[in-house]
């Protein structure tokens, strides 16, 4: 019988013990003594969220294909378990072997959103690994970070030995080989870090020094170790069809957030929405061959027995062979009792046909993400969706029997005026009006419109990386204004307006474009009890504000400040192969509300073509 790290008494007193026992179907079992490298992969949030993440499944599978590596997993213990572990002095353990994380060669932490930063400190503390990379000894694992937030690693730079900048499939083999070799030769921790720093895409923060001007902006950012390159270049897969993909994904024992097989149909996006970080970070579009996808779908469903398959990409509708793939899945899955979920589909005739086949029209809703209410604003953010297209899509759907619509918008976009905000209410209402143009006996009861707004948070490596973010007060004012406008609409009763928490967005804005000075703030907030900040029941804004104040830092310096093009941004040393010139040009076009054509219409020469197989933008 497997021996668990935690006693029955504890597991039966805490909530959802299945989070901590491993043993999922398709879990990889190896003898840790028979491998050269032990890698513990961490998603710093609760099990149900972490287990739903595709990236970890890809790397878990890829690492474990190597005989000399055993990759295991760990997630953030929920506060009840956290308490029990501290009380009983149980060190954080990996799910597979149930061995302490501290015994591993690597602790790899995926950084999917800023609000998980305090959870990183929890992971380190429970593992017994010193918080600061420079305090770690030969006994400690090498702590490596990756994922979208690694593109501005500076706020958490002090806590990591290494950041991996780019897509995991590209350089990890080289990294693991190099590590194995150095370990065999008895290299010291420092020698290992120097060795790894020479691999493309690897950033070792302690080999760099930052100095600041009096106004708080960066004066210089310099490599201070001879092996550390001045610039870190993003690594990306060119041929996604033949890159590693898990054919036997893990099947959790308990219900998780995304309880399904995930098929990543393509990486990158042709659209170039100016607010979207993923759209820039994962350029260019790279499509996975449709035959490979069919094969993967069959294999994954067979190996997991999952009852649902979901297509994953930033904009599924742009996938060239989407029809072929989707109709194949409908034929294959339908007969086997498997549901298909198709997020990020643009509403058109094809989408409506597919939706009517895979879901119950009466229970499902249409989703549009215009992101902004007015056409001017949509031009600013380069969202190619027009009101005409939205209304036509909605109308076709209404005629097909749908009567529920979800709309997603952002508040606080650059150059936004009250007029633009009002248009959010007007557009919501216009959709409802369209519905009621259908004769009563042909429509399906009342229309229900749910309009949601989130607050715009500028992100690094987007054309809006220089822009001023609104303050919480401004956001709230915009929200109140919109609420009032919603009430004025003819169909106000049919429109439900949802909004986000402003404080969470403010903090996200702080951390997203933060610098190294923020590491102390994160530490102080954690010491003050902050953890699971992305969970509203645990998020305490006041503690963060106190931590900022104690460190004499002003949140508005990071959020509500327009940067100039010549300012050194904290993430400037990273080269994502989308040129800064292109981003600058895009910001200028945005200010003029001029649209840039998408990659298939016309290449704008952003620079990402270096990762493209043939003709960039085609996806092939």
């Amino acid at each position, binding site marked *: *019988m*497997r021996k*668990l790290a935690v006693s*029955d*008494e504890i*597991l*039966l007193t805490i909530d959802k*013990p*299945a989070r901590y*026992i*491993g*043993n999922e*179907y398709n879990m990889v079992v190896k003898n840790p003594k028979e491998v050269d490298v032990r890698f513990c992969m961490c998603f710093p949030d609760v099990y149900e969220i972490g287990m739903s993440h595709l990236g970890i499944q890809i790397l878990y599978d890829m690492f474990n294909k190597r005989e000399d590596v055993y990759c295991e997993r760990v997630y953030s213990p929920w506060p009840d378990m956290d308490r029990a572990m501290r009380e009983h002095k149980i060190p954080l353990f990996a799910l597979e072997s149930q061995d302490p994380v501290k015994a591993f060669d690597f602790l790899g932490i995926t950084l999917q959103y800023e609000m998980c930063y305090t959870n990183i400190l929890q992971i380190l503390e429970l593992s017994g690994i010193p918080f600061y990379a420079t305090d770690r000894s030969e006994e400690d694992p090498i702590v490596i970070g990756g994922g979208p937030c690694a593109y501005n690693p500076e706020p958490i730079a002090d806590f990591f030995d290494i950041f991996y900048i780019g897509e995991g499939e590209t350089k990890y083999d080289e990294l693991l080989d190099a590590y194995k070799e150095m370990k065999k030769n008895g290299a010291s921790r420092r020698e290992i870090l120097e060795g790894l720093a020479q691999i493309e895409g690897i950033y070792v923060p302690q080999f760099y020094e930052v100095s600041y001007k009096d106004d708080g902006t960066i004066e210089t950012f310099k490599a201070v170790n001879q092996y550390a390159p001045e610039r870190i270049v993003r690594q990306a897969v060119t041929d996604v069809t033949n890159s590693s993909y898990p054919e036997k994904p893990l*099947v959790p*024992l*308990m*219900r998780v957030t995304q309880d399904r097989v995930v098929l990543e149909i393509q990486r990158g996006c042709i659209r170039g929405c100016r607010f979207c970080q993923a759209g820039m970070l994962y350029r260019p579009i790279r499509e996975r061959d449709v035959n490979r996808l069919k094969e993967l779908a069959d294999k994954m*469903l*067979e*190996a*997991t*027995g*999952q*009852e649902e398959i979901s297509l994953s990409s930033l904009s599924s509708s742009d996938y060239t062979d989407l029809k072929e793939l989707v109709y194949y899945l409908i034929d294959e899955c339908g007969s*086997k*009792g498997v*549901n298909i979920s198709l997020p990020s589909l643009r509403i058109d005739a094809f989408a409506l046909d597919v939706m009517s086949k*895979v*879901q*119950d029209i009466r*229970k499902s809703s249409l989703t549009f993400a215009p992101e902004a209410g007015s056409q001017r604003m949509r031009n600013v953010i380069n969202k190619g969706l027009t009101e005409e297209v939205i209304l036509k899509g909605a109308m076709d759907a209404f005629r097909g029997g749908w009567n529920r619509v979800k709309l997603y918008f952002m508040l606080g976009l650059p150059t936004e005026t009250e007029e633009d905000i009002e248009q959010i209410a007007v557009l919501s209402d216009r959709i409802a009006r369209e519905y009621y143009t259908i004769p009563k006996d042909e429509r399906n009861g009342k229309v229900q419109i749910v309009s949601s707004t989130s607050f715009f948070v500028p992100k690094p490596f987007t054309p809006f990386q220089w822009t001023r973010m609104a303050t919480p007060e401004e956001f709230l004012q915009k929200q109140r204004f919109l609420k009032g406008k919603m009430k004025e609409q003819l169909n106000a009763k049919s429109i439900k307006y949802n909004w986000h928490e402003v404080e969470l967005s403010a903090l996200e804005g702080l951390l997203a474009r933060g610098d190294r000075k923020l590491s102390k703030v994160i530490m102080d907030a954690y010491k003050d009890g902050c953890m699971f900040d992305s969970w509203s029941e645990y998020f305490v804004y006041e503690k963060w504000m106190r931590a900022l104040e104690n460190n004499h830092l002003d949140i508005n310096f990071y959020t509500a400040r327009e940067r100039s093009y010549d300012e050194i941004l904290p993430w400037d040393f990273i080269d994502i192969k989308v040129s800064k010139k292109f981003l600058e040009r895009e910001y200028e076009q945005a200010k003029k509300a001029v649209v840039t054509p998408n990659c298939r219409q016309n290449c704008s020469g952003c620079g990402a073509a270096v990762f493209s197989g043939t003709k960039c933008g085609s996806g092939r």
Partner: protein
Amino acid sequence: MIKARIKFEKTGSMKFIGHLDVMRYFQKALKRAKIDVGYSEGFNPHQLMSFASPLGLGLTSCGEYLDLQLKSVTSSEDIVKRLNDVMSEELRVLDFKVLPEDAKTSMSILAACDYKITLRQGYHLWENFRQELDAFLGNDTILFTKKTKKSTKEVDLKQSLYEYKIDYEAEEFSLFMQVTSGSVFNVKPELYLQAFYESKGMEYSPFTFEIHRLEMYADTNAKKGEVNMNGSDKKRVLQPLSEFGETVS
């Protein structure tokens, strides 16, 4: 559709998996094993299955039952093997039987369960524990105050204690019990231990003992909704749930 019954065991770390999660595990395992399961109609078709009785979190068992409907069957042996090939070592299928067309679900006919109760590692009992417990369970009545959120109710647990045996030979404590179960009346085995501790004026810690379910029975002499507890006029005729169908070869 063909009605069928699976008997399975749940051991080791799987004891931390809740009842609904076991159901989901089977749904996926049946798919992996390519068993020809029957589905409900509609946009979200689900497999037609039901369990005899949910096993509490923390308990292990070698006598769990799952009823399901199939469109076709190969052989019992083949189905057991195919399932076990795609299931955890700690969740094993023991038996597969096809039920008569008019068979009632195991949930509706369940009447009694066997349990084995042992001492959890690291815990200790006082010297004459076995004798004292034996004497307590031998009393004519075992009164116990059941406390729920709304009310407190005094019940006599003796009525639903069909059999028990304490093993005096074994080095470690081991108690066998057969108690009333099912949708009409259901008792948990730990109630007897709790009652015993309370009779001594001591506090019962739920972690002292490990509980393992051994078998489930139907009472073939009971009508629908009827429970023949100790003292009732009718005689109980208990038959394990696995004995209601046929092995297919």
